[in-house]
């Protein structure tokens, strides 16, 4: 079962860390986690993929849904620390054209 760790940094950035597989079963939970964070006023979110073993298209769909939620609240959603399997999925669907993976959580909102 996929676990989600979630925290807010000192700079007010929400970090969500899916641990395990981000697939069609886990995707709805990621969507609602992001929605909750945004509803609580944290509209700048990093999804930390360093503990995410694999991802399917439903997982990508949840990232896109989260991006929309964050943008509509004036914030943004970024992804960080993707492993090779996840990078491959980003390439396959061309999602890299939209979402640029950041090396790690610390650098995700650097400069913004």
């Amino acid at each position, binding site marked *: 079962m996929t676990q989600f760790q979630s925290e807010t940094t000192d700079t007010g950035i929400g970090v969500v860390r899916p641990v395990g597989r981000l697939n069609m079963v886990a995707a709805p939970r990621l969507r609602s986690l992001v929605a909750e964070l945004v509803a609580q006023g944290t509209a700048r979110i990093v999804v930390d993929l360093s503990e995410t073993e694999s991802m399917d*298209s*439903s997982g990508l769909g949840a990232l896109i*849904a989260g991006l929309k939620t964050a943008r509509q609240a004036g914030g943004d959603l970024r992804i960080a620390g993707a492993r090779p399997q996840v990078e491959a999925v980003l390439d396959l669907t061309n*999602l890299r054209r939209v979402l*640029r993976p950041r090396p790690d959580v610390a650098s995700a909102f650097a400069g913004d």
Partner: protein
Amino acid sequence: MSRHRRTAWTGSGASSVRQLADRETAAALSPRVPLTPGLVGLRVLVVLTAVLGLNYVVWRWLESINWSAWWIAVPLVVAETYSLVDSLLFGLTMWRLRRRRPPPPPPEGATVDVFITTYNEPVDLVMATAEAAQQIRHPHRTWILDDGARPELRERAEAAGIGVITRSGEWAGRQRHAKAGNLNNALMTTDGEFVLILDADQVPDPAILDRTLGYFRDPQTALVQTPQVFVNVPEDDPFGSQAPLFYGPIQQGKDGWNAAFFCGSNAVLRREALMQLGVSRYVTEVELAVTRTLRTADRVLARARRGLDPSQTEARAALDAVAGAVARSRADLRAGAALADVTYRFQQQVDAAARRLVDADVTALESDLAEIAALSSELDAEEAGPAELDRAALARLAHRDWSPLGAVETVRALVRAIDVDRDDEAQPLMPMATISVTEDMATCMRLHALGWRTAYHHETLALGLAPEDLGTMLTQRLRWAQGTVQVMLRENPLVQRGLTLAQRLMYWATMWSYLSGFAAVVYFAAPVVFLVSGILPVQALSADFFLRLVPFLAVNQLLFYVIGRGKRSWRGQQYSLALFPVWIRSVTSAVANVVFGRSLAFAVTPKERQAQTRRPWHLVRPQLVVMALLVVAVVVGTVRMATGQASALGTAVNLVWVAFDLAVLSVIIKAVRHRGPEVEPAEVPA
């Protein structure tokens, strides 16, 4: 060979059984089409038809057109060419006719959601389908996707332990995209690996999943389509509801080219394939929208600047700032920056410009704040949930939309379009294609373009209801045709990347067949013209003419006969010509819709019979006029021949032609005179 086999069998029993099973599975799933003697014979006929057809039509173009009567001669040769292409495409479809072996058992632990789509069908009918769906043997969850959001249906479904999904709040005020939207909405709230889609009237067999899921052992398979068969259709099928040629040889032929079609119902789809399609479409569409907006931005901004009063210097400065942000976004995109980053920076810059503008203009600021305050107190009064968020959202609105910058509607739309949230759609992911009123064909074509495979499983596993009155039937056919022509115009298969040449032609073949209305008019007009006036569209009814035409017609009919053996294919042939007003209207309305943005006047096909008081002759007026003209032409032509004004041969040929036309059109009379059963089970009040 025998030694190899012995080695295999003397090994572990279990593993050799597994090997055998694997071989069976491989045979059932392999894309190879075995070359049986039957298929060889079929191919000989296909080649013969093509050769004889080309022999006739090329000669027609080069040698036989009666140019002095070009106004009928050219349309006729064009119509004949149309029919030849139709025949060639049919031959290509039959070339790899594929009768699949039964698939292996379902993949272990496959999870399935069963979707029953409904909009306004009677609650009893929907419930009957849903309860049958509950009885499907393979483990699954049953959902009713009620686009009518009817409380009564929800109550009864939940009492029976069936889930109901209605549109989420996101859809309010946005395009609903009919059935495609209904399915896309449900895909976001469910999580099964596979999805079985059923129309509200398609009652499934309990074995439907056991018989189809096995194809998904091939990880590249995205879709398995089964036939659509109707139970409420009389033996003689007056409305041509059954499509035995399509749900049979045509789908089997397309399947041979890995182009089996998705037909909207009675099909199982792989969620991963749909979601992957949704994600890649999202990327394509965001990229298209952003680059297109950036391209036209200069014009929009220049127009906005011209509309400003000379005194509005701050607004002018703000527009300059937007123009600067546009220029920078263009440069970033060219440098390969990701769209989310480019648009985020753009929005930040526009926000900053708007803020400067507001700061500079104290009066504007105060009035804005007053409006915000009024709105927030209204929201507070209504107990507006987390007030923090609303204030944040309102503050943002104040910057972008309520500042004098946002007052220019075109600029506001421009700014909103340079984003990655697809604000114009209810959800960013739309796996089911929304470019057409029939979502199935476009979705399937996009899946094929992504490299997915599809399968046609030729076994009736659901029984549906066909329209029982002529008006409903005509509406349904019009909608199917309009949807197909929309796809042809919006995403022409001939130019879609990712499709094989054969797949392109398989999609094109179906679209081509919907253009038959224009050819039909010519086939009705040509004999009338000769019988009434003696004008022949060909130079002469010479031996050459008959020697080329007759063998082609004969072998073409033979091919059709061999393929349609034991099937009632004549009804379909009749309707492909007799519904010419429907086909023509589908093309003209779809062109008006796609090219000029007019509405299609789209109607949902009612599953209930419409009230029938009088026979609906008015629905087929064009066909009746044509029939009357044909009969008059017979009389006039016979008189002309009898009085020596027309040749016996020419008259005879054209009389035979008219007889064929009348035989085709006679189906219309049958359809108008048909009355459905007096009381249909679904209409009995509970």
